[in-house]
């Protein structure tokens, strides 16, 4: 089971990306020349609030979804995280487990918890909001920058809502803070090709390194 943590600030477009990427991974499982599992993709959805919003959208799109509400899996709900991951593996054993973190989470913390407490490796796909980048970095720079820490791929989203010059500035800043990541501008509300999502998938690191 390959685990991908999807992180990024509130409203950056995580769920929109998740729906497209998830559908691509399901298609991919159906066309690959190997025996695919019945449920190639399961989503673990973490909502900071008690309101179930994203999970209902994902369920309505026929994804298999498990939920953790009213807490953050990077800190306050780590036990629920580990239990849920084990349960998902035992119940469905999907090829891919996509964990959508809350917009308040630190994805690298989630990855550390999975490694240290569940013995699982995970890769990080993060989103930055090009439209709001300057404002949120000004208000809470450490938090926003740290949310992108250790991401293998950072999608700089909402390129349709900023000028090319602004987009280039945001990309450069993001890349400057996180030189190890592949930084890709996107417009998540538009569809992307399978080739694009395959490129994203190939850039995610799933290596099993010894601790």
């Amino acid at each position, binding site marked *: 089971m390959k685990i991908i943590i999807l992180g990024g*600030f*509130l*409203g950056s477009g995580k769920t929109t990306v998740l729906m497209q990427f998830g559908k691509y991974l399901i298609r991919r499982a159906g066309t690959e020349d190997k025996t695919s599992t019945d449920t190639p993709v399961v989503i673990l959805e973490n*909502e*900071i*609030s*008690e*309101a*179930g*919003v*994203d999970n*209902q*959208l994902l369920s309505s799109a026929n994804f298999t979804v498990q*939920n953790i*509400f*009213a*807490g*953050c899996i*990077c*800190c*306050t*709900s*780590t*036990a629920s995280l580990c239990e849920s991951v084990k349960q998902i593996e035992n119940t469905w054993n999907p090829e891919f487990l996509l964990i959508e973190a809350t*917009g*308040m989470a*630190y994805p*690298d*913390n989630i990855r*550390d918890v999975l490694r240290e407490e569940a013995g699982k490796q995970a890769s990080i796909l993060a989103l930055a909001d090009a439209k709001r980048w300057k*404002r*949120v970095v*000004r*208000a*809470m*720079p*450490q*938090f926003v920058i*740290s949310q992108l820490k250790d991401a293998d791929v950072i999608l700089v989203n909402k390129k349709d809502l900023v000028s090319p010059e602004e987009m280039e500035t945001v990309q450069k800043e993001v890349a400057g803070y996180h030189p190890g990541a592949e930084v890709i501008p996107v417009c998540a509300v538009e569809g992307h090709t399978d080739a694009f999502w395959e490129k994203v998938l190939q850039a995610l690191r799933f290596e099993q390194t010894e601790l």
Partner: protein
Amino acid sequence: MKEHISEEHHIHEHEHCREAEHNHHHHEHEHCQEAEHDHHHHDHEHTQEQLPLLDIDEHEGALIGTVRCRIPGDYAQVTEELEQAVKNLAEEIDRQGGIVGHIKAFVKEENRSCMLSLTEPGEVHRIPADHPAVLAEIANIIFGLSEEEFHKCLVLAYGRWLQ
């Protein structure tokens, strides 16, 4: 209208949290009997039974307002009203110097229902029970306001559906 919040503002910055548990702030909510918790997140299972609901939690400097309500009326009309309410809320938060993190809602139509009754072979008696309504679950996540200020904003935006 404030354009930006300085780091001295009460949005607080802190290091990565490596602890599984925090000491959390007091939170107030309408359906809970206890005045204070040590932990600011609920331990109860997520349920759609509590309607209407207005609940405020705090996490890492953000305030999370959960609103859940059933609104009688036509789906298209109610959805438009909710859109306006969400816009009004964002403007009010901005006007008061806060920052909107994310306001998101899932809006579901509940409408047609009926009872079927049959006591012997023959015709089935149908009793319509149409009560058009919309179930809305709304997560409102903001920064930069006190809980009291935020509570007032939420009541202003959604209050008519929470009575």
